[in-house]
């Protein structure tokens, strides 16, 4: 394969967000809601997306009058274009609500873009969905497991979903988990009994079982203790080194991005504000911090005028 592993061209996605509308209850309200959504669903087939057009009411009045209550359109990803080469670890950094997870979901075929194209190993995520799904796997920030089942039962289920032989997949899973520092006896009890760090390691093992060509890591170390975080980061580097896997990593941990990524894109309000190697990004900032080394957080502040921590407190419009 000579082209890029991932190619995003002018990708946009917007959502309609309900804003302060009073919730109605009762059977008739329920029926109205279901019927209107059925209508939207069918209408979306027949015409342009009925649900994600710009036809929502705007907010506020220029004269300072009370803002209208009603849905508003939020552009979560706005005309984003980039390419990722095979074997590259590509970071997407930004605060909560910046569009990182939305972008990952579109690459993972869980969300349809409103505009633009996304290709994974030259397969379109919209028109060649099943082929793309064979090539990718994803680790999300939430542990997507049946918590009452054991790690092994979850992994066996995953193996069958991806057409793998369960027994050999189980053996492989044990090897990966051992490499991540998870003892074998822990994988036969309910997942809910494991710590978040252990659950995330199982999540990574599950993603790697299928030996994906492209691995989507959506904030994989969020909420992990420092040792677990380092274990996961070391393993990501090892996977890339040994298998040549292309990795997309979203994070708001700048140090992690700096350690792992060949190139980093900084995203804010759905737009890429910068894309370069970590050193290249630091080179964009002329004002050096006093008494310490420059970090990617300084780069983020310089480029967006915002502190990362301030943005983490901002209510996400959509992610």
């Amino acid at each position, binding site marked *: 394969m000579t082209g890029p592993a991932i190619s995003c061209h002018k990708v946009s996605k917007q*959502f309609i967000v309900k804003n302060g509308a009073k919730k109605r209850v009762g*059977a008739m309200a*329920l*029926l109205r*809601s*279901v019927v209107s*959504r*059925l209508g*939207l*669903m*069918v209408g*979306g*087939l027949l015409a342009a*997306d009925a*649900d*994600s057009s710009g036809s929502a009411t705007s907010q506020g009045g220029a004269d300072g009058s009370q803002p209208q209550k009603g849905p508003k359109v939020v552009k979560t990803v706005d005309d984003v274009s980039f390419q990722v080469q095979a074997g590259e670890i590509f970071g997407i950094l930004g605060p909560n609500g910046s569009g990182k997870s*939305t972008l990952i*979901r579109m690459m*993972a*075929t*869980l*969300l*349809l873009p409103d505009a633009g194209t996304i290709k994974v190993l030259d397969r379109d995520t919209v028109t060649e969905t*099943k*082929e793309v*799904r*064979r090539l*990718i*796997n*994803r680790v*999300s920030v*939430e*542990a*997507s*497991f*049946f*918590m*009452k*089942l054991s790690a092994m*039962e979850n992994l*066996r*289920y*995953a*193996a*069958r*979903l*991806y*057409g*793998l*032989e369960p027994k*050999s*997949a189980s053996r492989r899973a044990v090897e990966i988990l051992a490499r991540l520092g998870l003892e074998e006896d822990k994988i036969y009890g*309910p997942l809910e009994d494991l710590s978040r760090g252990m659950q995330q390691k199982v999540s990574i093992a599950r993603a790697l079982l*299928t*030996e994906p060509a492209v691995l989507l890591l959506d904030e994989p170390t969020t909420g992990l203790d420092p040792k677990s975080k380092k274990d996961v980061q070391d393993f990501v580097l090892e996977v890339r080194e040994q298998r040549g896997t292309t990795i997309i990593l979203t994070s708001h941990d700048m140090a992690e991005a700096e350690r792992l990524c060949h190139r980093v894109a900084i995203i804010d309000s759905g737009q890429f504000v910068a894309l370069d190697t970590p050193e290249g990004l630091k080179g964009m900032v002329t004002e050096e911090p006093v008494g310490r080394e420059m970090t990617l957080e300084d780069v983020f502040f310089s480029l967006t005028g915002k502190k990362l921590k301030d943005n983490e407190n901002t209510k996400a419009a*959509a992610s």
Partner: protein
Amino acid sequence: MRTDRGHGFGREFSASYGLVERNFSLVRRYLSWEVVFLFYTIVNTVTIGLIAVERPGEANQRVLYLIVGALLWGFLSVLFMEVSNSISWERWEGTIEYTFMAPIHRLTYLGGVCLFAIAYGVVRTVLILGAVSVFFDIDLGGANLLGGLVVLVASSLSFIGLGLMAAVLPLLSTEKGAQATNILQGFILLISGVYYDVSVLPGWLQPLSVFSPATYTLRAARAALLGGAPTSQLLPEIGLLLLCGVLLIPIGLFIFNLGEGYALRTGKLKRSG
């Protein structure tokens, strides 16, 4: 080294089997709750049957009438609920995105859910029947058991179709979709003559009973089990039920695919929808 099962039917069947295996593993994990719900269903069925015991003379026929209704409805409603709530439960567990990202046909996923629903429904119904037979002296001497079984199989297809259509509702709306599913199930219970003949329904409600596959299921099953009607006599209902299944399953799949497309466009595949 990745060891594949290859492509095509074998791979898809393995994925469907994975769903059955997963769901039975969940039943094992939630076994105490399963026992509780089974106990409640047994008690419910027995209390319904005991209504008829008060009337001596016609007790046996009346008990059978009610028990057949309760058992059949128990099986068909489990089928409907398992299929229609499959999305709700994936969302509740937080696994909906992972499952929908898998490279399998949606038919494979839904087929696995249906296979589990049938197996689970059969096991449950057999256990309830066994428990109920301890309370009542059920005389099936003149019953056409084979005919009753054929009716049950035919009605399963139509209820799977209904379940597939209802399964789209939680895709459209997380909470309200699951609520609507329960309302739909309640409505089917009301109009289908589960515990009474549909002729006792109010006049304005009776015409709706023709739209429920359960109406024909109960009519034919009671004819077979209570009246010993030969299978040839049941063919009109069996044919209608098979026709319902043949129509409702592809329609249900089509509607489900529409719903999935809507969810993919609007971002409703997330845990919170």
